[in-house]
């Protein structure tokens, strides 16, 4: 055999190996299950505090601020009034704030929600199923979902009014 006939074979072998390399590096980076900006928000259905189920897909066509929280989380507490204010300000323009409580009993959720006068829907993720689905780490974590159901932004940690307003503007278009 001569050199000319061998080179294409070698290029092919090197090509395959290069693909393997790229794939390996890519998979070491891509964390499995994480819901990232640009992804479609995974659909789910949860009970609301009042006992009626709410499906995320039912909110298609509206801008959704999905906020994961718990009563024992201080920044979540601090954030709630701002969320309520922004909800009041933009709900007529098509914003829905959805608070997902992580794994607490309705009694505790009630004793948290009532004194704060929260009016946006509160969902009970009793078995942490949706929390795991969205791979929630530290809370609060908020997802900004546009009318098409796409995650436009994601914030881990406490937000203030200005930040919320800024992000909400992006999903209200």
């Amino acid at each position, binding site marked *: 055999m*001569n*050199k000319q006939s*061998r*080179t294409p074979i*070698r*290029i092919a*072998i*090197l090509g395959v*190996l290069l693909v*393997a*390399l790229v*794939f*390996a*590096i890519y*998979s*070491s*980076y891509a964390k499995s*299950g994480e819901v990232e900006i640009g992804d479609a928000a*995974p*659909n*789910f*259905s*949860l009970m609301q505090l009042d006992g009626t*189920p709410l*499906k995320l897909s039912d909110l298609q066509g509206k801008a959704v601020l999905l906020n994961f929280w*718990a*009563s*024992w989380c201080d920044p979540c507490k601090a954030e709630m009034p701002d969320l309520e204010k922004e909800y009041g300000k933009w709900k007529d323009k098509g914003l829905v704030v959805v608070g997902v409580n*992580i*794994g*607490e*009993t*309705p*009694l*505790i959720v009630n*004793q948290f929600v009532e004194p704060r006068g929260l009016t946006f829907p509160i969902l009970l*993720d009793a*078995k942490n*199923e*949706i929390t*795991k*689905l969205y791979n929630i*780490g*530290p809370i609060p974590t908020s997802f900004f979902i546009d009318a098409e159901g796409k995650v436009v932004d994601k914030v881990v940690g406490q937000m203030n009014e200005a930040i919320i307003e800024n992000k909400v503007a992006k999903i209200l278009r």
Partner: protein
Amino acid sequence: MDQTDLDQVKCECGHANPVGTLLCESCGKPLDQSEEPDGEKQARHEFPDMRYEGMARRSQTYNKSIVDRIWNFFSSVKIAVWMIVITLIACALGTVFPQEQYIPVPVPTEADVAQFYEKTYGVLGKIYYALGFHNLFDSWWFVTLLVMIGMSLVICSLDRVIPLYKALSKPRVNPHESFLKGQKLRGEAVVTDDLDARKVLPEAAALLKKKGYRTYQEGTSLLGEKARFSRWGPYINHIGLIIFLLGTLMRSLPGMYLNEFAWIREGETVPLKGTPYYAKSVSAKVDYYSEDEFPEKLDLRGGVIAKNYQTDIILYRNENADLPGAEPKLTKLKEGIATVNHPFTYEDLSLFQSSLLPMQLRALNFTLVDQKAGNKELGKIKLDLFSPVAEQKVADGISVRVIAYFPDFYLNKEGKPDTKTGQPNNPMFALEIRNADGTPPEKLVYVQGGTISDKADARYTLGIEKPDFYNLTGLMVRKDKMMPMIYFGSVIFLIGVAMGLYWQHRRIWVHFAGDRLYIAGHTNKNWFGLRKEVEFLTTRMNLPVQLVLDSAKPAKKKRETGESKETAKQNG
């Protein structure tokens, strides 16, 4: 243009060899000698290395284009060893401090991780974190290193195995004398009348056969060959490693690998993330060894030794799994147990008994006592810590309502009751007792094991009863479809190393040329074993041959003449 003229080198014997051939493919005569050998000694010292049988290897021949250069890079054993050494050092560094996944305290955010290393290990820890060693084995450069080792395995093998295959499938039965004189183990004798090729060769062939050699004869030349297959060992073990690495790589494909964890309280049924399944912990238990089970008396200082951790599990399929969070529709699939070392399995899903926390608080039990009626016990109250009932009837006309519940009670900055975590580590309940007889409701607070009333002269109080406990089980939820491939690769690797290391490819030449008899031997390892076999041949046949075995000095181009002579072995 005549391509063959450029790419081939003709040997004396007439065989056309590819460029880069060190020893003629047909007769074994060295091809790359720039000058004519003047005398035997020099011929031997300039004799090329016998590795890969002196065949032309792509990587050693061309290095002009980029493809050539990359190919040559990965086909170099030197580079491969460097990659092994770098991996080795990286691994060692990765164990200096614990990896992120093994940090013993909870570190929810990246900042906590950074702080952990700095706080625990000081400046060194800070550097360790800054360099990314806390997540070394998942880092892009470590993964790249492993894949590059894989690439090197593929290319090294291809570069060598093809020429080696060509060489070994055509054994050099009748080699050139310079080939025989160039061998590490060799001897020669002047042919006398009683040394007749027609007599000696069949006799030698018979002896070699007895020792397990396969023999080839061509004219006045005899070749005995044994365990040629061991030469394939390295390639087979490399193939095994490649399969292994591919297996680990393919685990990143969607659906191939699942790694989750589920905490389940006794009696609870929870969804298993990433699967359509739900698992129920019917019961979870820890057994301890009793003292009479000890093989000898032990002083445990009041401690105990666990004997068994076990969870009885029922696995369900959720027919409603398409919509997460929706009311599940469960069909029972399998009932079984998980203990350490013996997972619960269903199809390719395995649940591993990983953690078991016994005696966790589930519910507080009280008796409601009427202090005004001579401490009369009115009835029982149960306060479930995970889903307390808002209102319960205690006795006729008397009910208890939970007005506040803080699972992990503390007083916050504003001095108000609050909860530190979601776990019932320090439950606090505020209760309201209503009586249908019209007396105003009374409030009671249970906190830190005691009861406080809102009235100085309270009617009701709580008698504390034994609480309800449960065992909390932690299950690892795993699926690994690549396991068979990983095991298969390991087995192939082991077969390969065993072939390559437990057998040796040995060849012995007995060759008559002109007035001389040449004997030469070659093996890829265990020269002393080979010498013994050649000695066996020469002593049994009374051949007047003096065997020489070159010293095991590094096979460098410039060997010092004196040294090899000094250690050359004598044979009588």
